[in-house]
């Protein structure tokens, strides 16, 4: 029986090649989009799940509350996890990571290693990072022990065995020993280190007693709980633990800590505190919904075309019933047929996926390996999914077709009923609603991105080259040396640049009431030249100047937001007030206009600036004349190699660097655009099918009308007006829907565009335009036909 079904299905597919192509192609494209998104969703959800103890591992995070604000940090200070494990029996073990970027050298092979962590020796007891060489229990116990990933080991040692060999750390050339090699950490991990240095090295290298400094944040801490520990119960024990260990200090500093646990498996996707790498569950949902919509559009095509063609299959149904088929058998036949079509589409979509995975990786910005995609279990799941799609898309047409009464259909008096037509129209509207919504969504996302790129940031980042010396002691010398390079207009050395990292300092500032108000303030260490170089506007007081000897150690500049935070309504009022920050005390000498030192997603925060020669960052900003950039860059690179020969040349342009903060949004926009194009494409395939079918159905009518004197344009109008109406209804439905959803998306940006009505007008026009091209190209052809021909063909 099945063989008979497949045979007739195959012959039908073959006989109506045009329809079948539209059907199969539409489904294949829809499935491809759906599969790729499924892959992406699955990948995002797979983060950190591979650790055998994942269920018992939590990230320990800290809220820091000062009288001024509360910071929801994703990091802790060193002692927190250590003493928690000591004091609380529920915690079996802990491991901390301190990210860093160090220069590592082996003979002439040198790299600035930014995927480097100082790590506790317990790291490998918590996490499953298989060791290729070395003892996981002891590898990170001794100072100056280094564990490398396989690819890092290859980078430095090639085919040599790295075990026991030495590597030089930092420019000061601490000698360290390779004590272990692990397999490269999988892509779906929240931290992907290439180099792990034993935590105790910090004591020897920087005299950093990390186990005792409660106020020194920066550590990402993980704790392993004993089996069957209730994390919420454990959390309730933290306040007492903190009071007993640091109660006094907290009171003294007017700073209050609270600790929380985040399940390891949820850190990446759900934590609002961010981390080394973080995903966004909302985007996962959005894409999952988009995938379902695209699939829906493809299925609608299938349903529409199949039911529209029902008349052609009616006779067959009648005959089969006459010779004894049950209705159920006919239903089954048509469902098997749609499953067969889906399976053909499935095969095509597998091939498409294979071709598109690299492109999709590029769009998504990560290596979502095609390897797991072609794993048998995935193929089976996708295969079943394809069958399910066939079943769902086939069920309605099958029920319609199998309900035909043989007496009626064999008499040939059969015509499609009004109900079917209404359904088809509704489905076309659904398709276009989805397509228009996606177009409008794309427009809004791209306009927001454009808005963020073109917004006046309050500082100048054009033609600004920045050298990243990673805190090299000679950054100041380098800065002075590049001043003589032709094309260099001006330069400066600083600890931070807009869009990058900056330290946050425990600060006390005299407020309007005359009290010393505590706040954690971001701090930029800058030289005399920084503010003019970046064209940051001064609104009160003055900038740092060599004319005032006290400026190097006893002066601070605040931005307007900071001034407001401390209660001053006019910036002038803050001038001359006292500050105390990180052991330095002095006066506020100036107030600068707010500038965006972070992305436009967040509001401009209070900021402090102090004089320093590149403390921490060692960033050299260089303004270059436009036409000299390439030559200047080469000359600057030569200077670099002369002054700090041990470091690889590292630089970026300030504007690109700032825009890198929008990478996730750019990717989001890119993916959105691609899927919107797909949705429109599939919808148009469907429209093409329906219109061409409708036109052939009315071939004779067109002939008669022409004989009676109708012009080509009136006939085109007659044929297309129905469909255009549907597209217009879709615009009306899609606009409020998208307005609602995109407002929510935009609400995440502190600075965003307003959605104006014309976005929907444009989205609608695009849809109408494309639909019009499809419709008229088909109807004009029919309308131009010689009427005699169409009448004779009956």
């Amino acid at each position, binding site marked *: *029986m099945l063989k*008979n079904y497949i*045979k*007739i299905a195959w*012959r*039908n597919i073959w*006989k109506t090649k045009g329809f079948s192509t539209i059907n199969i192609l539409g489904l294949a494209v829809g499935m491809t989009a759906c599969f790729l998104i499924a892959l992406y969703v699955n990948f995002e959800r797979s983060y950190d799940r591979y650790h055998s103890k994942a269920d018992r591992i939590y990230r320990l995070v800290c809220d820091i509350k000062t009288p001024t604000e509360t910071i929801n940090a994703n990091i802790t200070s060193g002692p927190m996890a250590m003493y928690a494990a000591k004091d609380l029996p529920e915690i079996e073990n802990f491991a901390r990571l301190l990210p860093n970027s160090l220069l590592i050298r082996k003979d002439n092979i040198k790299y600035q290693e930014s995927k480097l962590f100082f790590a506790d020796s317990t790291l490998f007891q918590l996490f499953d990072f298989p060791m290729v060489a070395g003892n996981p229990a002891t590898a990170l116990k001794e100072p100056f022990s280094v564990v490398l990933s396989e690819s890092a080991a290859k980078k430095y040692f090639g085919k040599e065995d790295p075990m026991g060999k030495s590597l030089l750390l930092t420019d000061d050339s601490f000698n360290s020993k390779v004590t272990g090699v692990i397999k490269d950490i999988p892509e779906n991990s929240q931290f992907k280190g290439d180099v792990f240095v034993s935590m105790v090295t910090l004591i020897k290298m920087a005299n950093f007693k990390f186990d005792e400094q409660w106020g020194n944040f920066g550590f990402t801490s993980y704790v392993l709980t004993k089996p069957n520990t209730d994390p919420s119960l454990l959390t309730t024990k933290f306040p007492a633990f903190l009071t007993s260990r640091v109660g006094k200090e907290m009171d003294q500093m007017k700073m209050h800590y609270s600790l929380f646990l985040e399940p390891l498996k949820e850190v990446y996707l759900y934590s609002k505190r961010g981390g080394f790498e973080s995903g966004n569950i909302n985007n996962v949902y959005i894409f999952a919904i988009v995938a379902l919509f695209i699939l829906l559009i493809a299925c609608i095509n299938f349903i529409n075309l199949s039911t529209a063609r029902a008349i052609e299959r009616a*006779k*067959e149904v*009648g*005959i*089969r*019933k*006459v*010779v*004894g*088929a*049950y*209705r159920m*058998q006919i239903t089954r036949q048509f469902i098997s047929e749609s499953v067969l079509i889906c399976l053909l589409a499935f095969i095509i979509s597998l091939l498409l996926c294979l071709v598109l995975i690299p492109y999709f990786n590029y769009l998504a910005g990560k290596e979502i390996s095609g390897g797991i995609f072609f794993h048998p279990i995935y193929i089976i799941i996708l295969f079943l999914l394809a069958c399910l799609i066939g079943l769902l898309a086939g069920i309605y047409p099958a029920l319609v077709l199998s309900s035909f*009464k*043989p*007496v009626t259909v*064999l008499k*040939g008096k059969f015509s499609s009923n009004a109900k079917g037509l209404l359904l088809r129209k509704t489905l076309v509207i659904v398709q276009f609603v989805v397509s228009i919504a996606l177009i409008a969504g794309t427009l809004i996302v791209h306009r927001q991105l454009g808005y963020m790129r073109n917004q006046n940031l309050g500082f100048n980042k054009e033609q600004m080259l920045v050298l990243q010396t990673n805190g090299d002691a000679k950054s100041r010398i380098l800065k002075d040396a590049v001043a003589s390079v032709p094309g260099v207009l001006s330069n400066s050395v600083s600890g931070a640049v807009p869009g990058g990292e900056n330290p946050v300092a425990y600060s006390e500032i005299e407020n309007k009431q005359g009290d010393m108000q505590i706040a954690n303030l971001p701090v930029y260490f800058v030289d005399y030249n920084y503010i003019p170089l970046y064209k940051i506007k001064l609104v009160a007081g003055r900038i740092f100047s060599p004319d005032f000897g006290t400026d190097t150690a006893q002066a601070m500049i605040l931005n307007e937001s900071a001034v407001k935070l401390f209660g001053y309504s006019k910036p002038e009022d803050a001038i001359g007030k006292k500050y105390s920050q990180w052991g330095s005390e002095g006066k506020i000498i100036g107030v600068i206009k707010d500038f965006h030192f972070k992305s436009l997603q967040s509001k401009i925060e209070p900021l402090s600036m102090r004089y320093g020669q590149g403390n921490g960052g060692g960033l050299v900003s260089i303004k270059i004349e436009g036409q000299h950039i390439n030559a200047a860059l080469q000359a600057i690179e030569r200077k670099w190699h002369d002054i700090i020969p041990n470091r690889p040349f590292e630089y970026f342009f300030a504007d690109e660097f700032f825009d890198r903060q929008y990478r996730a949004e750019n990717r989001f926009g890119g993916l959105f655009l691609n899927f919107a194009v797909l949705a429109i494409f599939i919808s148009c395939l469907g429209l093409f099918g329906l219109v061409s079918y409708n036109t052939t159905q009315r071939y004779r009518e067109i002939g008669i009308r022409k004989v009676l004197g109708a012009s080509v344009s009136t006939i085109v109008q007659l044929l297309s007006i129905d469909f255009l109406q549907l597209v217009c209804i879709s615009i009306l439905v899609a606009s409020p829907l998208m307005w609602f959803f995109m407002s929510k998306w935009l609400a995440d940006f502190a600075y965003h565009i307003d959605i104006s009505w014309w976005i929907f007008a444009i989205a609608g026009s695009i849809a109408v335009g494309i639909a019009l091209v499809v419709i008229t190209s088909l109807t004009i052809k029919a309308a131009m036909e010689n009427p005699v021909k169409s009448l004779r063909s009956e």
Partner: protein
Amino acid sequence: MIKITELQKYYRTEEVETVALNSLSIDVQKGEFVAVMGPSGCGKSTLLNIIGLLDDLDEGSYKFNDIEVAKFNERKRSDLRKHNIGFVFQSFNLIDELTVFENVELPLIYTKVPAAERKKRVEEVLEKVQIMHRRNHFPQQLSGGQQQRVAVARAVVNNPKLILADEPTGNLDSNNGNEVMQLLTELNDQGTTIVMVTHSEHDARYSDRIIRMLDGQVVMTTVG
């Protein structure tokens, strides 16, 4: 074999109700060859469809082999139909996507005859209607007469006890028509009951009995 009494059949459309068959009663014995004649629109096809259980009746009783079938549901009708009744239509009604062989095979598939047996039986009937050499052609590649012979083969392949033919020669020239009539007569000689609707007095002469209808009623029965 067929006993219909006081049969009423209406067609309802939005505005009007047509009485297609009006208190009609007929009997057909096993092995009979009955021709049904009458002017266009008098209800012949309707009657045939009811006999063939393709359509239901509004009032009256219909006994098939002494079993009351008037109230049968769709599934039971299918069962009865596929084991007992073969159809031949004026417009052949072959499935265009299937070959001659596959068309004839179809009823056997629905009665779950095993494949080997199917092949044997299909070949037998194709031999009988002399279309064996065209077994792998598609209907569109055959002449009208050939198509109708395939339709007859399909109707008889299941060895039905009853064959219903609605103007089987209506679309054929006289030569081809006579061949089909010859086939039906042979089947009747082998014991198959036949009810045939026809407009042709010539064809009606092949039958044992002619039922004449007018406006949904039987007006006369003549024995041939």
